[in-house]
C-alpha cells in the first residue's frame, strides 16, 4: 500500500505562497486516511458476516434435510443388533409339558393365476386339474378366459405339487410364499389345539389366525412377534394323551357308545394333563362346522368335556354327602333312613330298579348310590346352603379352562330352586354341567378341600384356590369313594397296583324337545387315584353306551364307564410316574434279570 504523506511538500509550499494555513492540509489528509480505514474495516466485517451467515444456512439446511428424511422414510431396525429379526415374525409354537411339539409352522406355497399373463389357458387348466383332481376344469377355463385379473388356485401345495405346477411353465401361474400351521401329531389333542386358518391374504404373505381351541384363545400371544421364539407350553402330556385317546377309543367301540370323553387333571395344580373327546378330527384339516342337523354333539368338532353339558347323575351324590359332613349334620357312619315312599310335592323319589336299602350309613348311601338317602341329606342341608356349596365348586359358571369353547359350557340350573330341585340335584339331576366342572369338583375332594381351577397351561407347584371343605371332610369323602370301588357300584374299577376311589353316575339323556329317553344314557365315572393320597382326578364319560353282559342289556356306568376308566388308569398311572402298590403275589409276574 502506498502511503500518502500527510504534508505533501508541493501543496504546503503552494499554500504558504498564498498565505494559507498549511495545517489545514494536514488535518484534511488525516481525516481522509481515517475514512479509508473505516471503509476497509466495514467491508471486512460484512464479509465475515456473510461467511458466518452461509455457514449457519448450510448447518440448518443439513439439520432440516435430515429431519425431513427421517420423518418421511420407513422406520428401520438398526441392522447391527437385531438377531434373527426375520424369523421372529412366525407364529409361536405350542409344546406339551415336556417341550414336545404340538403345533409348529412350515413354509409352503400358494398357487395363484393372473389370466392376462397366461399363454395357453385351456392347456394350463387341463394340467392343473391333472395335478389337483379336486379342481373343476370348466370353472378354471371360465375364470382363465374371462375378465378376471387374479384368482387363487390353491391355498397350500406340497413341494411335489409345486414342482408339477412349475413344470406347466405358464407365466400366468405364480407362487406366493405361505406359512402353514402344522400339527405333527395329527388327531392327538385335536379339541384342545383347535386349528388355524388364513386371515388377511396377500400375494407374498398371509396371516395365520387361530380358529378354535388354544390357537384362538391365545391368538394374541402366539402372533406377537416378541414371542416368536417363546413357545406356548401346555399342561398336556403327549404320551399320556396318546394312551388316553387309544384306550378311550377302544372303550367307546367295545361299549357301543357314540361318543366318549375323558379328563385327567392334576388335583393339586389344576393342570389338565390329558383331555380327550371322541369322535375327534384332524386339526391339520379341520372340518367345517355343521350347518344342518339338529344335534351339535354329532359333529366331531363338538368338544364333549367342555361343551357336553348334561345332567351327570349320581356322581354328584358325593358333594351332598361331603357338604352334610362339612356342616356337621352327619358323619360317614350316621344311619340314614332310605326306605320309601318319599314324595316331594307330587313327585315320588325312587331308587334304581325300585330297590329299597332300608336304614344304612351315609357311606353306604354313597356305596349303593341311594337317591332317597342323598335326597334326605339335601333336605337337611337346605337349598340355599346347597347352592352356595355348589357355587363354591364352580358348578354355576363356565369353567375357566383356557380354550374358547369352554365359555360355551354354561351349566344349566333350574330357574326356581325349590325343594324338588334340592332333592334331585343332590343326586345329580336338574343341574347340567360339563365333565370339566365335575373334574374341578372332584379335585377339591382329592386335594384336601381346596377349589382348583382347571387350566391348560403348565404350572409349577400347587395352585390352591379358596377352601371349600375341611381336610377331614375331604378325607371322609375320599374314604366313601374308595368304598364305592371296593364294595359298591364300581367294583370293575379295581386296578391292580393302584387304589382307585370314585363314583359312578348314569343319567338318562334328555330329548331335544323335552322329556328323557328310556334307552339312551350318559354313563360317567369320576375317580381319584391313588386313593390313599390322591394326585389325579379322572372323569370318563360315555355317550349312549350299551353292552350285553350275562344275557342282559347293560347301560349303567358300573358296566360301561367303569371298566374303561380302570383300563385307562392301568395304562396311564405308570406313565404319570405313580408308584404302584406292590403286592407280594405281583412278584411272580416280574422277570428277574441280571447282567
Amino acid at each position, binding site marked *: 500500500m502506498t502511503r500518502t504523506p500527510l504534508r505533501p511538500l508541493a501543496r504546503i509550499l503552494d499554500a504558504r505562497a498564498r498565505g494559507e494555513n498549511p495545517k489545514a492540509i494536514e488535518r484534511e489528509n488525516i481525516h481522509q486516511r481515517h475514512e479509508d480505514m473505516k471503509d476497509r474495516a466495514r467491508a471486512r466485517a460484512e464479509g465475515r458476516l456473510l461467511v458466518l451467515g452461509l455457514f449457519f444456512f448450510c448447518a440448518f439446511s443439513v439439520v432440516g434435510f435430515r429431519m425431513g428424511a427421517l420423518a418421511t422414510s420407513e422406520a428401520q431396525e438398526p*441392522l*447391527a443388533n*437385531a*438377531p*434373527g*429379526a*426375520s*424369523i421372529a415374525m*412366525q407364529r409361536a409354537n405350542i409344546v406339551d409339558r415336556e417341550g*414336545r*411339539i404340538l403345533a*409348529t*409352522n*412350515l*413354509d409352503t406355497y400358494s398357487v395363484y393365476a393372473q389370466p392376462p399373463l397366461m399363454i395357453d389357458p385351456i392347456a394350463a387348466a387341463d394340467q392343473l386339474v391333472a395335478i389337483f383332481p379336486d379342481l373343476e376344469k370348466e370353472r378354471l377355463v371360465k375364470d382363465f378366459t374371462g375378465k378376471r385379473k387374479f384368482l387363487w388356485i390353491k391355498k397350500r401345495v406340497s413341494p411335489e405339487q409345486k414342482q408339477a405346477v412349475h413344470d406347466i411353465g405358464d407365466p400366468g401361474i405364480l407362487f406366493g410364499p405361505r406359512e402353514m400351521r*402344522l400339527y*405333527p*401329531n*395329527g388327531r*392327538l389333542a385335536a379339541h384342545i389345539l383347535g386349528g388355524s386358518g388364513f386371515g388377511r391374504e396377500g400375494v407374498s404373505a398371509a396371516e395365520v389366525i387361530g380358529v378354535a381351541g388354544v390357537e384362538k384363545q391365545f391368538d394374541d400371544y402366539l402372533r406377537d412377534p416378541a414371542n416368536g421364539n417363546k413357545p406356548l407350553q401346555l399342561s398336556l402330556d*403327549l*404320551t399320556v394323551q*396318546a*394312551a388316553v385317546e*387309544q384306550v378311550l377309543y377302544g372303550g367307546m367301540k367295545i361299549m357301543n357308545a357314540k361318543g366318549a370323553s375323558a379328563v385327567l387333571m392334576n388335583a393339586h395344580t389344576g393342570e389338565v394333563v390329558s383331555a380327550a373327546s371322541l369322535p375327534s378330527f384332524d386339526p391339520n384339516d379341520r372340518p367345517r362346522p355343521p350347518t344342518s342337523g339338529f344335534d351339535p354333539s354329532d359333529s366331531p368338532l363338538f368338544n364333549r368335556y367342555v361343551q357336553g353339558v348334561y345332567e351327570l347323575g349320581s356322581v354328584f351324590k358325593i358333594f351332598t354327602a361331603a357338604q352334610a359332613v362339612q356342616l356337621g349334620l352327619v358323619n360317614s357312619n350316621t344311619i340314614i333312613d332310605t326306605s320309601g315312599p318319599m314324595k316331594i310335592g307330587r313327585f315320588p323319589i325312587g331308587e334304581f330298579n325300585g330297590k329299597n336299602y332300608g336304614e344304612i350309613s351315609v357311606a353306604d348311601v354313597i356305596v349303593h348310590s341311594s337317591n332317597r338317602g342323598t335326597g334326605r341329606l339335601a333336605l337337611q342341608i337346605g337349598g340355599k346352603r346347597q347352592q352356595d356349596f355348589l357355587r363354591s365348586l364352580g358348578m354355576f359358571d363356565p369353567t375357566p379352562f383356557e380354550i374358547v369353547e369352554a365359555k360355551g359350557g354354561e351349566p344349566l340350573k333350574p330357574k326356581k330352586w325349590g325343594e324338588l330341585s334340592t332333592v334331585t340335584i343332590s343326586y345329580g339331576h336338574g343341574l347340567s354341567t360339563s365333565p370339566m366342572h365335575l373334574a374341578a369338583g372332584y379335585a377339591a375332594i382329592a386335594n384336601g378341600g381346596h377349589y382348583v381351577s382347571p387350566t391348560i397351561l403348565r404350572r409349577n407347584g400347587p395352585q390352591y384356590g379358596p377352601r371349600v371343605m375341611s381336610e377331614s371332610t375331604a378325607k371322609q369323602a375320599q374314604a366313601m369313594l374308595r368304598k364305592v370301588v371296593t364294595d359298591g357300584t364300581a367294583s370293575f374299577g379295581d*386296578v*391292580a*397296583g*393302584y387304589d382307585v376311589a370314585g363314583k359312578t353316575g348314569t343319567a338318562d339323556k334328555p330329548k331335544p324337545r323335552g322329556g328323557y329317553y328310556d334307552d339312551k344314557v350318559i354313563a360317567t365315572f369320576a375317580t381319584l387315584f391313588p386313593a390313599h393320597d390322591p394326585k389325579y382326578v379322572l372323569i370318563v364319560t360315555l355317550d349312549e353306551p350299551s353292552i350285553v353282559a350275562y344275557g342282559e342289556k347293560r347301560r349303567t356306568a358300573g358296566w360301561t364307564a367303569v371298566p374303561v376308566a380302570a383300563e385307562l388308569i*392301568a*395304562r396311564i*398311572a*405308570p*406313565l404319570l410316574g405313580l*408308584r*404302584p402298590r*406292590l403286592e407280594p403275589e*405281583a*412278584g411272580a*409276574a*416280574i422277570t*428277574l*434279570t*441280571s*447282567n
Partner: protein
Amino acid sequence: MKSILYVLTALSVFGLALWAYQENYRTQQVVKETQLLQQKIGVAQARLAVLNAEWAYLNRPDRLRELADLNFERLGLLPLRAEQFGRADQIAYGEDPDLPIVDPIELQAITETQALGEVQFP
C-alpha cells in the same frame, strides 16, 4: 510459534479425517458381515424349524405305536403296566466273580487218569 500451532492443527485434522474415513468403511464392512450372518441364522433357524417339525412328525405316537406293533417279535414292546414294577430286593444279585487261580494244575493228566478209572473222586 503461531505457525507451528497452525501446522499441528492442520495435521491433526488430516489425521482425524483419515481415521474417520477408515472407521466408516470398517463399520460398513461389519454391518455387511452382520447382515450376512443374520441371513445365515435365519436360514438355519428355518431349517431347524423344519427339522423339528419333521422330528415331531416322525415321533408322533401313532407312528411309534405302529412301529412297535410291526417289530413286536424283535422288540417285544408292550404298554407299561403296574406289574412291571418291582422292589429293589426282588432283583437277584449278580453272580460272584470266579476266584483267582493261584495254583494251576495240569488238566490233561487228571482227565487221562479219570478216563482210566484209576483215581476216584469222592
